[in-house]
C-alpha cells in the first residue's frame, strides 16, 4: 500500500490497520480542544473515549461512507457530544476538591503549574459564553478548524459558525475587560 494514499482510503481498506495513523494525526488537536472544554483533569479520559467511539463507529460504516468522511469534523461531532455529557453528569454530581497532586518536580512542574493556571483562567472565561459560541471559538482558535469544518462538526450553516466565532470573541473581549476593572 502506497504511503501517499489518504487516511480515509486506508481506513476504508482496513480500519484497524489505519486507525493508529488517525490517532497520531488527530490526538493533539482533539486533546487540546477537549481540554479547553473540560479542563486538564478529565481531558485525557474524554479524548480517549472519543477516539474509542470513533473506532467503534468506523467498524459499523461501509467503505463508501468511510471514504466520504471529513475526519476532523466527524471526530469533533463525537467529541463535542462527550464534552456535553461530561458537563451534564458533572453538574449533577457534587464537586470534590483534589487535595494532592501527582506532579513531576522541577522546571517541568513549574511549567505545568503555569499551564494549568492559564488554562483554568480561559476555561472560566469560556464558560461565560453560550455553548454554541464556546464550541465555535475553541474549534476555530484552539483547534484550528476552518469555518466549513466547524459548520460540519456542529451541524449548522457556515454563516452561523462564522457569527458564533465572532460573537464569541466579542463576548470574551467583554469578559476580559470586566476582569480588568475588578
Amino acid at each position, binding site marked *: 500500500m502506497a504511503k501517499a494514499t489518504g487516511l480515509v482510503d486506508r481506513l476504508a481498506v482496513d480500519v484497524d490497520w489505519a*486507525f*493508529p495513523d488517525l490517532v497520531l494525526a488527530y*490526538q493533539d488537536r482533539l*486533546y487540546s480542544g477537549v481540554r479547553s472544554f473540560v479542563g486538564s483533569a478529565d481531558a485525557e479520559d474524554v479524548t*480517549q473515549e472519543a*477516539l474509542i467511539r470513533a473506532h467503534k463507529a468506523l467498524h459499523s460504516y461501509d467503505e463508501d461512507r468511510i471514504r466520504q468522511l471529513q475526519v476532523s469534523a466527524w471526530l469533533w461531532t463525537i467529541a463535542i457530544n462527550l464534552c456535553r455529557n461530561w458537563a451534564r453528569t458533572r453538574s449533577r454530581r457534587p464537586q470534590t476538591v483534589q487535595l494532592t497532586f501527582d506532579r513531576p518536580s522541577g522546571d517541568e512542574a513549574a511549567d505545568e503549574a503555569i499551564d494549568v493556571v492559564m488554562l483554568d483562567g480561559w476555561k472560566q472565561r469560556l464558560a461565560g459564553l453560550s455553548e454554541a459560541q464556546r464550541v465555535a471559538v*475553541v474549534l476555530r482558535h484552539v483547534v*484550528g478548524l476552518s469555518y466549513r469544518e466547524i459548520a460540519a462538526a456542529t451541524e449548522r450553516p457556515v454563516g452561523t459558525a462564522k457569527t458564533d466565532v465572532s460573537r464569541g470573541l466579542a463576548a470574551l*473581549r467583554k469578559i476580559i475587560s470586566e476582569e480588568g476593572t475588578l
Partner: protein
Amino acid sequence: MTDDIARELEALATTAPDSLTRNVLIATRTGRFYATVGGPTGDLLIGWSSAGIYAVAPIGELARFLEVYSAGPLAPIPQQLPTPWQRQVAAALESGKLGRLPVDLTGLTEFQQAVLRKTLEIPPGQLRPYGWVAREIGKPGATRAVGSALNKNPVPVLIPCHRVGRSDGTVGRYAYGPEMKRDLLRAEGLDPDEVDDAAERGVRFIGSATTNIYCHPTCHNARRIKQTNRVELRTAAAARKAGFRACLVCRPAAAA
C-alpha cells in the same frame, strides 16, 4: 485586542500525553504490540497487531526490534498475547507447525511470500535446500533470491526458515547466527552435525534398495530405510540412472 485573544487561545493548543495514545491503541487493539514467550531454544519476542503476528525475534534483539517496528513516535507496546492466541502460539512452538495462527506478511513481495509459504510445508526435523524451494515455487533459477528472502523472514521459528539449508546439503547460515539454526533443528530431533557430515561426504540423496525410491536425506521416508538397504546418492541424475524414482513426499527431483 481580538487578535490578542485569538493568539492566547492558540497557545492553549498542546500535545496529547503518551498514555492517551497507548490507552486508545490498547482499548481498540489497533496498535503494534509485543509479548515474550518461551521458544524451543530460548525466549522469543512475538510482535502482533490486529492483522496478525508481524515479527518474531530472539529476546536479545529487543532494542533492534523496537527500533525497526516503531511507527513514527510510536514504539510497539508490551502486552499479553490475546487469549485465543496464547494456546495457539504455545502449540505452534511446541509442534513446529504454524496451524491457524494469523501471520502478517504485509510489505513483503509476492516472491518473498511464496518462499515463506512453501517453507511452511517442510515438516519439523527436516531440511530442504534453497534450490528445492526455488523449484517448488516455479522459479528454478532463483536459488540465491530464496536465500535472501528467507534471511529476511520477519517471523522466523513460526515460519521455519531454519529448515532450509544450502544447496550442498549443509545446514548453512541463519539470520540470528548459525548456532540458533542448529539448536532449532536439534530441538526438532535432527542432528545438524550428522547432516553436515553426510553433505561433506557428497551425499545429497538417500535411496532405498527395496523400494527403489530416493529422498532428501532428512525425509521421514529416507529415515525409515534400514541401514542395509540405504544407498547414498550424489546427484538426482545418478539416482535416476541407477533406477531410482523420486519420493512423492519430499520431491527430490525439484532439487535437480
